[in-house]
């Protein structure tokens, strides 16, 4: 069930209506049923996959909690009789058992994700090798990727790792854990929430709060505006350019990437606005996933502000554990001795960064495009890190760091850099992506922008006007957010202005939304992950 379908709107009205009329103690149970109904409509077999993940994580979480309790009570009971060494040995024994249960949970659930998502990618690569040796090729398997599997698997694995680390107690009510994993507004495209951030607000009783409800509704409208008016309109031109690389090279690649940046931003942040807005209408607080990312002055900053919950997930569960694990510390120690202090201390950071960006690429999709995209992101981040002292000297020497012009240059540079990397998202393979990138320099003909070609990409003048106005509104909202919540500011205006703004937004979606004849209701880009 897509957020943009009429069926979803009807479903949402029913859920919200029931949510505020049934006894409060049943609210979370209603959300659980609603989440499973919602997911059922994306394919009944998907329910099996998510249920297996929920049950396995629940059982192993409880096991981890029980082992922890067992250790504490044993040490308490035998406080007097145990020597220090015996206590240590007992703790070590429990630690090993807990570690094995954690590994089982991780391998099992990440194994499901890997099997469904990456089997055909692995077969395609094996077949390439087989072809070289003139061997028979393997057949591809027919596995449907459940919507949002990458999101809910990561969210669940974050939970089990936190339980293992003792950050919080395991959830002992399987229904509640199931709701945390399957909460329908965020099930198919995140944010990737943490249990300690979301659970309390998810399970507690919520009374109807008019202001919260209105703010949530406004955010949902804003999300639909971005998705239906901007993203689903500009996508036509993005596809026309990127699916026909032989026709559209040179300056069109740049145009395509700027359009794609607009589409991706409007699509993904729009989807998250709808998610957070729906949750807010239900009185539930979901973590923010964006912080005006296109105002970032460097790629590192960009990744702190774009898809924040994914970035922090990789940081907390892969980057840090890998960087500070014993083998890595040993590598660091030996490489310092061998290569000197400066190079030696960089090695753990480099190895972990490359691993994180490789897995980030792989998480986004089973193709070399995404892997290369991920590795290039990591490469740019490491290079920027190395050049940091040089930049600092440059800024000091020319005293430019704090000027508006220089900050604008940095923002534009980051935007263009990220847009260039996204070429790999759009073209059919890595070779074509690099060829198209190269054509921006070798076949650049700016005149093509003014000979009417832009109007042959599936967008007419009225589409461009709607997109330009939409983008101006998005930029204005982002600029306004720097000094606080836009909805709070609007709420402080006279009633007539308040209503005018939201009536305008509502009718913009109805009138200018890209649906109906000539437009297909598009899935959100991140649903596919």
């Amino acid at each position, binding site marked *: 069930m897509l957020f943009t379908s009429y069926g979803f709107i009807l479903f949402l009205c029913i859920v919200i209506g029931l949510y505020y009329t049934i006894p409060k103690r049943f609210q979370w149970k209603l959300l659980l049923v609603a989440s499973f109904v919602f997911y059922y409509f994306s394919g009944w077999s998907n329910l099996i996959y998510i249920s297996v993940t929920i049950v396995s994580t629940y059982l192993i979480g409880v096991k981890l909690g029980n082992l922890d309790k067992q250790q504490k009570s044993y040490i308490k009971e035998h406080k007097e009789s145990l020597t220090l060494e015996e206590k240590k040995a007992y703790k070590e024994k429990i630690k090993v058992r807990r570690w094995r249960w954690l590994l089982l949970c991780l391998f099992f659930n990440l194994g499901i994700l890997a099997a469904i998502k990456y089997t055909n990618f692995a077969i395609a690569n094996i077949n390439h090798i087989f072809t070289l040796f003139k061997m028979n090729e393997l057949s591809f398997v027919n596995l449907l990727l459940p919507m949002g599997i990458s999101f809910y698997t990561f969210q669940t694995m974050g939970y089990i790792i936190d339980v293992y680390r003792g950050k919080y107690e395991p959830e002992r009510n399987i229904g509640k854990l199931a709701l945390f994993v399957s909460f329908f507004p965020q099930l198919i495209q995140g944010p990737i929430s943490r249990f300690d951030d979301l659970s309390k607000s998810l399970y507690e009783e919520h009374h109807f709060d008019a202001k919260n409800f209105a703010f949530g509704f406004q955010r949902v409208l804003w999300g639909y505006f971005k998705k239906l008016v901007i993203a689903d309109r500009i996508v036509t031109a993005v596809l026309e350019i990127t699916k026909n690389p032989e026709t559209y090279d040179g300056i069109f690649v740049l145009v395509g990437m700027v359009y794609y940046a607009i589409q991706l931003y409007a699509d993904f942040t729009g989807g998250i606005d709808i998610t957070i807005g729906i949750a807010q209408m239900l009185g539930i607080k979901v973590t923010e996933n964006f912080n005006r990312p296109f105002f970032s002055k460097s790629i590192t900053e960009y990744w702190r502000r774009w898809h924040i919950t994914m970035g922090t997930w990789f*940081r907390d569960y892969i980057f*840090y554990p890998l*960087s500070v694990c*014993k083998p890595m*510390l040993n590598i*660091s*120690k030996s490489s310092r001795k061998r290569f000197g202090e400066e190079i030696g*201390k960089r090695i753990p*950071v480099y190895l972990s960064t490359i691993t994180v960006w490789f897995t980030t690429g792989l998480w986004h999709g089973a193709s070399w495009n995404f892997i290369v995209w991920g590795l290039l992101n990591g490469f740019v981040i490491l290079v920027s890190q190395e050049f940091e002292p040089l930049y600092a000297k440059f800024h000091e020497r020319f005293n430019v760091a704090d000027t508006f012009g220089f900050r604008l240059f940095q923002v534009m540079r980051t935007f263009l850099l990220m847009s260039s990397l996204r070429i790999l998202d759009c073209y059919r393979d890595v070779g074509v992506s690099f060829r198209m990138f190269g054509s921006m320099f070798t076949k650049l003909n700016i005149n093509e922008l003014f000979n009417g070609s832009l109007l042959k990409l599936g967008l007419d003048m009225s589409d461009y006007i709607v997109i330009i106005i939409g983008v101006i509104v998005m930029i204005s909202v982002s600029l306004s957010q720097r000094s606080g919540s836009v909805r709070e500011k609007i709420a402080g205006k006279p009633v007539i202005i308040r209503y005018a703004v939201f009536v305008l937004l509502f009718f913009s979606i109805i009138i200018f939304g890209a649906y109906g004849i000539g437009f297909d209701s598009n899935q959100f880009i991140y649903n596919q992950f």
Partner: protein
Amino acid sequence: METLLEILEGLHPEIDFETHDSLIDDKILDSFDIVTIIAEVNDQYGVAIPAHEITPENFNSASALYELIQRLMDED
């Protein structure tokens, strides 16, 4: 504590680590710095700071970090 201050000052000589108490909140220490600090602490103090101890509370100031090191040494 002096050894720890030397490690921190080696990364950011411009910061007064004896008084600063929002190193993470003010984005002075990034993830690369944290990994470098942990490797050097391991070298100097023989203590391995586990990943789950990497929290703003433990890394916001030199004194908080020093307390963490002491605690981990005691646990050993």
